């Protein structure tokens, strides 16, 4: 299992991702944003950071990087792609995921661990039981997920809502989302389930040295899936 971690100018979480997946016993390699070769990777990660300084909108410029045309092809071929934080914003800008990420309500950059409820979804990056509560840090200024009412209904009907901000007991309240996200949505996937975008940083809670292990399940789930497909 080999993860390809894309580096855009201004990415700053790529080393965290590489450390996390190597900690779990998988291989990892970097992909420069100007490269267009994703062969040899079993999954692609768009890491967090501030690609292109977040100019115009978060992810708006990165979306046109040469590598992104290849990421779109990779995703359309049904292969696993995850966008974490800025990576989620890039996936939304690239229309690989619906909706957009607005500035946090309250205009504060928020950096803190949050509780998330795993929803029943088609996402290939998750094999935790629905209703499970995990604790993963967020670290963003623009994580306020929004989409139109019709899209929201579609996301819910298709099992594309993957993670919701919640209370310690797993209940989701409007105020559970520290950033004001619509329906407390923290992560969504595409209809097929292979493309996953989330604002929290699972790679930061893989090595127990960093204070938690709740992020391990996501990388393990996709590795298991890839192994099954390879048969």
């Amino acid at each position, binding site marked *: 299992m080999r993860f390809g971690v894309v580096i855009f100018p201004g990415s700053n979480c790529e080393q965290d991702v590489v450390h996390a997946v190597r900690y779990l016993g998988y291989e990892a390699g970097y992909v420069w944003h100007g490269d267009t070769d994703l062969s040899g990777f079993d999954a692609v990660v768009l890491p967090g950071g501030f690609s292109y300084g977040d100019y115009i909108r978060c992810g708006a410029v990165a979306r046109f990087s040469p590598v992104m045309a290849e990421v779109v092809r990779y995703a359309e071929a049904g292969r696993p792609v995850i966008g974490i934080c800025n990576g989620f914003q890039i996936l939304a800008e690239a229309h690989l995921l619906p909706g*957009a990420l607005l500035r946090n309500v309250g205009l504060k950059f928020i950096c803190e661990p949050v509780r998330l409820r795993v929803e029943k979804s088609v996402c290939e990056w998750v094999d935790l039981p629905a209703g499970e509560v995990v604790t993963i840090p967020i670290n963003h200024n623009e994580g306020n997920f929004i989409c139109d009412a019709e899209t929201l209904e579609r996301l819910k009907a298709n099992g594309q809502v993957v993670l919701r901000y919640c209370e310690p007991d797993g209940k989701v309240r409007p105020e559970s989302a520290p950033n*004001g996200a619509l329906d407390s949505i923290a992560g969504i996937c595409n209809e097929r389930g292979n493309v996953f975008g989330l604002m929290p940083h699972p790679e930061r809670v893989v090595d127990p040295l960093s204070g938690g292990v709740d992020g391990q399940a996501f990388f393990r789930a996709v590795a298991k899936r890839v192994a099954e497909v390879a048969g």
Partner: protein
Amino acid sequence: MARYEVFVTYKKGIFDPPGATAERALANLGYTEVEGVSIGKYIRLDVADGTSEERVAEMCGKLLANPVIEDFRIVAKEA
């Protein structure tokens, strides 16, 4: 050279956190007559003579604005 001005604002119904914050702050300062604040972006484009407004609209739809959340208004200016 021709010049276009582009104003990018949130679509109706999309919550505008900076606008809402400015609205509250103005009310706190006693400007209770304020009934709404919308904060957006101003972009000035200097382009070659003959560049059409349609071409500028294309730039807006592709990069300068996100049609999922934003509207844009293009104003042609005398350079």
